[in-house]
C-alpha cells in the first residue's frame, strides 16, 4: 500500500459526515451532490435557492482549500482532457439514472441502512474496480 493515510481519511470522512448531518438538520434532506446538482440543472422551482447555496459552498470550499491546503489537489495522476470529458459524461448520466453518488448513496444511504444505497454503492465500486483493472493492467497506463 502506498501513501496509505488512514488518519486524514478518517478525519476527512468525519467532516463529510458532519457537514451532511448539518444539512440534514437544517433542511431535512440528503446531502447527495449529484442529486443537488441535478436538481439545480432541472431548474426545479422548489428549493432552487437551497441548491445554489450548497453548490456555492462546495465551490467556495475549493477556493479555500486552494489557499490553505493546496496539497489536497496534488495528484500523481492527471486525467487527460478527453478522459475527463468522457468521465464527466458517464458520471453525469450514471448519477442521475442511479439516483445518487458516493455522498448520497455511499455515505448518507448506507448510514440509513438503505438497501438501495448498499446495492448502488457495491455496484459503482465494482465497475470502478473493473475499469481501473482494465485501464491500468490490461490496456496499460493511465492516460
Amino acid at each position: 500500500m502506498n501513501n496509505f493515510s488512514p488518519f486524514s481519511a478518517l478525519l476527512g470522512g468525519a467532516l463529510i459526515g458532519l457537514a451532511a448531518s448539518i444539512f440534514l438538520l437544517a433542511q431535512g434532506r440528503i446531502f447527495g451532490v449529484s442529486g443537488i446538482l441535478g436538481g439545480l440543472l432541472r431548474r426545479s422551482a422548489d428549493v432552487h435557492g437551497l441548491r445554489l447555496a450548497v453548490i456555492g459552498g462546495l465551490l467556495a470550499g475549493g477556493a479555500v482549500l486552494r489557499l490553505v491546503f493546496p496539497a489536497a489537489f496534488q495528484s500523481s495522476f492527471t486525467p487527460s482532457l478527453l478522459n475527463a470529458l468522457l468521465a464527466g459524461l458517464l458520471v453525469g448520466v450514471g448519477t442521475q439514472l442511479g439516483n445518487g453518488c458516493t455522498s448520497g448513496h455511499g455515505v448518507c444511504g448506507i448510514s440509513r441502512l438503505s438497501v438501495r444505497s448498499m446495492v448502488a454503492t457495491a455496484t459503482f465500486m465494482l465497475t470502478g474496480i473493473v475499469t481501473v483493472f482494465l485501464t491500468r493492467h490490461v490496456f496499460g497506463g493511465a492516460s
Partner: protein
Amino acid sequence: MKSMVVNFAAGLLFAVGLGVAGMTNPSKVVGFLDVFGDWDASLAFVMVGGIAVYGILSRIFTKRAMPLFDTRFHLPSRKDIDLRLVLGAGIFGVGWALAGYCPGPGLVTAASGVASAGVFVISMALGMKVEHRLSQWWGARHPPSSA
C-alpha cells in the same frame, strides 16, 4: 436568510472534508480502486468516518418532528432495486474510475482551478441534462399502466 448561510456552510465544510480525506486527489481515488495493483485503502476509511458520524447524527436528527428550516423531512423512501439503479450506478462507477472524480470532488477541484476538473464538471452537467431528456422521452414512451 439564515438557512442559506447554513446550507452554504455545510457545502463549504463538506468541501474541506473532501480535501482532508484525499477525495480531491484523483490518484488516491484510482489507487483505492486499483485493488489488483498498488492498492491504497485510504478511501475505505473516508467512508467509515463519514458513515460513523452521519449514522449517529442522522438518527438523532430525524427523531425531530421537523428540520430547522422546513416543515418536514424530505428523505428517500424507495426500497426497490431496479435496473435503473444498477445500470446508473454501474455507469457512474466507470466514469469515476476513469478520471478519479465524482461530483463533489469534481466541483471542489474545478473551483480550485484545475483544468481537467473543469472539463469534468462541464461534461458532467451535460451528461446530467442528457439523462434528464432521455428519461423524459422514455417516460413518455412508457407511461405507467393505470391500476
